[in-house]
């Protein structure tokens, strides 16, 4: 008979916790797939397709499905770090296959060469190019994401990607270089030895 006590105890516990779990699953149910949105929010939204996906959201979906997080050159190191932090994985170096991190650029149309074909306008994912057929086009710099997608379609090759800021605006302090530090140390060490 004594065997029944633990059996019942466990049974009751199982029922109680099962009910709790069932309730929690209903009460705290999360609609949709928020992780894709969260990942998408971390991507730079250039829609450039350098990752091999047709835009940022498809790349976010691929990451959510377990794909690599290091395929976004415009986002660069900071985006990888943010993604790694969100997904709780180790950050990896940027996959050079998809391009390298660079200063942010914007498209610039050499206007006297533009023939007004509207091909770039159609290519622009954020409607940042202004113009109409047979009239010169121009880029609204503040809207341009620097995605590069308008360069390819231009039949007269009159679109340049130029840095958004000049070198002075881009300059900032870098952390002290630890390698330099070590070299310095070893040199001072040897100097002391020699003297």
């Amino acid at each position, binding site marked *: 008979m004594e065997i029944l006590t633990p059996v019942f105890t466990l049974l009751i516990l199982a029922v109680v916790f099962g009910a709790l779990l069932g309730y929690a699953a209903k009460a705290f149910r999360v609609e949709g797939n928020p992780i894709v949105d969260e990942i998408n929010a971390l991507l730079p939204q250039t829609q450039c397709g350098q990752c091999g996906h047709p835009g940022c959201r498809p790349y976010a979906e691929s990451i959510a499905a377990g794909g690599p997080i290091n395929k976004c050159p415009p986002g660069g190191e900071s985006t990888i770090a943010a993604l790694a932090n969100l997904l709780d994985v180790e950050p990896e170096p940027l996959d050079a296959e998809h391009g390298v991190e660079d200063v942010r650029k914007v498209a610039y149309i050499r206007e006297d060469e533009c023939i007004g074909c509207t091909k770039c306008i159609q290519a622009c994912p954020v409607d940042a190019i202004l113009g109409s057929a047979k009239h010169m086009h121009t880029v609204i710099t503040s809207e341009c994401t620097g995605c590069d997608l308008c360069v390819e379609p231009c039949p007269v090759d009159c679109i340049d990607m130029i840095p958004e800021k000049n070198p002075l605006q881009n300059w900032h*302090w*870098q952390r002290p*270089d630890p390698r*330099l530090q*070590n070299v310095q*140390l*070893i040199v*001072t*060490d040897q100097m*002391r*030895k020699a003297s």
Partner: protein
Amino acid sequence: MSMLNSSPHGHQGHSTGQVMQQVMLACVPGLTALTWFFGWGTVINIIWLALLALGIEALILHLRGRPIAFYLRDYSALVTAVLLGLALPPTAPWWLGLIGITFAIGIAKHLYGGMGYNPFNPAMVGYVVLLISFPLQMTRWVLPVGATDALPGFGESLVMFFGAEPFAGIDAYTGATALDSFRQQRGGMLVSEFWSVTDVMGRWSGLGWEWVNTGFLLGGLYLLYKKIIGWRIPVGMLAAIAILSAVFYDGGSSASGGSPLMHLFGGATMLGAFFIATDPVTASTTPKGRLIYGAMIGIIVYVIRIWGNYADGVAFAVLLGNFSAPLIDAYTQPRTYGHRK
């Protein structure tokens, strides 16, 4: 090599090495008292541990491919050696120090990344490893001058150091420390009664110990004066011990835990408060956090002394404090200028 150097371009001129030198200098009064009352054993310990510490540090730096001379000049290994040497009993044989310092520097310090990266106080890790592994050797203290006529001479200390066991004379010199006999041998006596029957108690704390602690207190005040250490950790720790012992003093009844003076000047209190708990690498770093950290160590020290299994608890208390330092820091961020009060 043209390298952009950010401001500032001036420097106060203090270096980590100088900080460590000051710490070692401040140990001198305490060490003098230890030697006066307990013989040459501690001095021999310190010399031996210092040699070992430098050797082990150099060896590991070499293995890790780091510049040796540069890192040896920060004197952190020497400080670890001195602190562990001060904590070891004067009767410690050579192998005890070897094991302790190997753990302290090899494992507690370098396995965690070396100077600045160790989460636990290396000297205390070494001490606790020895205390748990070799309880007999670690609790065998020399009787202080006054309790015995025969303090071991330098030669006899050397014989003990070389561990010629069984050394016939050793038992003549050794006995329990004051704190140890207070908890073990008091039976149901009143504090004053115990004071009169034993010869290991002095004026207000353990015989000899009260002066050793006074020595470390002086050294600690010197460090405070030189601004090498802050006041918060020592004050937190000493205040916690003083308050707790006052609360449980009970007028010296048979259930008493001993007077505040006995606890403040007994065992490793002052050494711990000014030299060990203040090790900045492993302590809390926020101003408020340091007070809490010190107080926490003080509370644990008292708890271990009165209700724990060991006569003194500074080493354990400091390690437990080290454990909680990051948590304390996280909850005691100071208010930055311009942020809401």
